[in-house]
């Protein structure tokens, strides 16, 4: 089989599907190639939160705000299927008075960046979250964004891509990339046949470096593992997405306050995401790893941490645990970038925020390909920042 398209997107997760969506929407003939089923890797082994609580101040927070806007636009106006969107707002929980003092600063920074948030004192917090341990000191409330089911989101995007005329080859392995005589990207070789394309977007997530190396491009994306626990459905534990404020510190590689050795080793903290299926997802952990088997020590530490914040959860059942691999970059910020090979783009390394960043990332890559002004300055997300 030999085929000719405008653009090939490699990777059928949220990032790849978002790219295919935007390229197809803007009239390009697009083919998405995925080695397995759609949303079968990182995108089905994560949570689905799209809140702006944990980014560093300034430019990246602005980008995240735009990203969440793109997700909401897709969910409410573009996609034809339900994706279990929940928008009850969220709390980042301060365990102690000291953490609450830090939270005040975070809140001010976020307000300065135009994010809707406010401090919530102890009385109001416990009124809103009656199952919370009585000593939890306070919280920041964020009201923009929401959460969704990444799997439903992915399948809905896939159907939309096809409706827009895009093509999807699943269970197809990319075996090589070929350049034209002038150095620009030329062909994508697969086990189902070769495809000639003007543009190739590497959206292979944790495998994006494998694809990059096919044309000699190093992409510093590594695998950062995380475990999640799923509770039985229909037990109301919390009313909204909650996470401990340590999440912010952790994301930016700061030490956790607690000296617990297991927590330090596996980067364990607490978050809880109510889902559209009436379960709750309980996290989190963060440590280098390359397999998707759950780590018993880490999941146990997460369970312990969950009981610390919501004591009543001790009697709630865990029905399932799962682990996923986040595509991590050295500075925890994504790579949305052209490369030294004309026509070859990288859209990867979204760390723990790929669901939220996906749609905006696809839009930005498409704007770059079409030579249009991009919604944000792309310098910060360029691959060249690592060279």
């Amino acid at each position: 089989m030999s085929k000719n398209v405008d653009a090939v997107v490699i990777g059928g997760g949220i990032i790849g599907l978002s790219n295919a969506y935007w390229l197809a929407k803007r009239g390009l003939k697009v083919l998405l190639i995925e080695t397995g089923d759609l949303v079968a890797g990182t995108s089905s082994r994560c949570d689905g939160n799209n809140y702006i609580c944990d980014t560093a101040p300034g430019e990246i927070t602005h980008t995240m705000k735009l990203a969440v806007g793109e997700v909401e636009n897709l969910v409410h106006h573009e996609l034809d299927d339900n994706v279990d969107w929940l928008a009850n707002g969220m709390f980042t929980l301060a365990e102690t008075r000291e953490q609450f003092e830090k939270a005040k600063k975070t809140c001010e920074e976020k307000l300065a960046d135009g994010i809707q948030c406010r401090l919530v004192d102890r009385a109001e917090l416990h009124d809103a979250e009656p199952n919370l341990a009585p000593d939890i000191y306070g919280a920041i409330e964020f009201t923009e964004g929401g959460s969704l089911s990444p799997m439903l989101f992915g399948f809905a995007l896939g159907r939309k891509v096809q409706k827009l005329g895009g093509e999807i080859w699943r269970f197809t392995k990319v075996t090589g990339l070929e350049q034209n005589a002038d150095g620009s990207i030329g062909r994508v070789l697969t086990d189902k046949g070769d495809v000639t394309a003007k543009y190739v977007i590497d959206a292979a997530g944790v495998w994006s470096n494998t694809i990059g190396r096919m044309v000699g491009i190093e992409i510093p994306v590594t695998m950062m593992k995380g475990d999640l626990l799923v509770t039985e459905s229909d037990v109301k534990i919390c009313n909204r997405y909650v996470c401990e404020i340590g999440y912010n510190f952790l994301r930016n590689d700061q030490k956790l306050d607690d000296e617990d050795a297991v927590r330090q080793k596996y980067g364990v903290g607490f978050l809880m995401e109510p889902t559209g299926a009436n379960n709750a997802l309980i996290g989190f952990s963060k440590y280098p790893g390359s397999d998707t088997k759950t780590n018993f020590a880490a999941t146990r530490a997460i369970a312990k941490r969950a009981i610390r914040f919501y004591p009543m959860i001790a009697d709630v059942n865990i029905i399932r645990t799962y682990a996923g691999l986040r595509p991590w970059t050295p500075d925890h910020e994504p790579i949305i970038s052209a490369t030294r090979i004309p026509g070859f783009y990288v859209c990867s390394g979204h760390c723990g925020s790929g669901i939220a960043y996906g749609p905006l990332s696809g839009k930005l890559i498409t704007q770059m390909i079409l030579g249009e002004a991009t919604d944000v300055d792309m310098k910060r997300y360029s691959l060249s920042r690592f060279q």
Partner: protein
Amino acid sequence: MNDIAKTGFLNSSELKEIGRYPSEERMSRGPVAVIECCQNIPCNPCETACRFGAITVGDPITNLPVIDENKCIGCGVCITKCPGLAIFLVDKSKKDARVSFPFEYLPLPEKGDMVRAVDRAGRYVCDAKVVRVNNAAANDCTPIVTIEVPKTLCDDIRSIRRLNLPDEDTEAKLLEIDDWRAEPDDLIVCRCEEVTVGDIRKAIADGAVTVEGIKKRTRAGMGLCQGRTCSKLVSRILGSETGKKPDEIQPDTVRMPIKPVSFNVYKE
């Protein structure tokens, strides 16, 4: 012979063949213990339970117990002491035979109830009348139920169907269906998440080619039972609809903790 490693038990003809079943003459005189133990494990409560010296394990303790049918008076004390629930009483002295067995499921039947007798594999054999329910304190929570059944069936009947299961065994019926193409769209397959055959057909039309692909599109298998009930059915529907053979369909991913466990227990 059946493969005991697969079935988990010896059937009555196998027990008779290897001389581990009481004689017809003894059974016709009154109740006698039938010891169906087939594991050479270090275990001898049956030997110490019998006040009449009718059961011998001896040395080494991993021997299988041997019964002296003439010393056995059919009291049934050994039934409650066997940790493997492998001892029964059979009595062929009356017009109908009586079978006594340990029954550790609530609710217990009552004397006079009509119940559904099952064989060693748990398959329905015939209806039976309960003649005695012995739940004395000395039984230590292992009640002995005695039922009346035809003599021709009593060597294979070893228990009764649990009383709190629904009348129609829907799941067993569904498991007998090999070709699902004619089944109606509204038939529920995954009871936890209320996923129907129609939902699964839609997922297959949407491109699902594995049990996991169906799970991700429909939530079949993502509920409380984690697919223990439905994943076999889902894989058969997938086979029927796509023409794949059973061995070409990959089973679903098994995820810890297999059965639900509370946070409190899990954290330890």
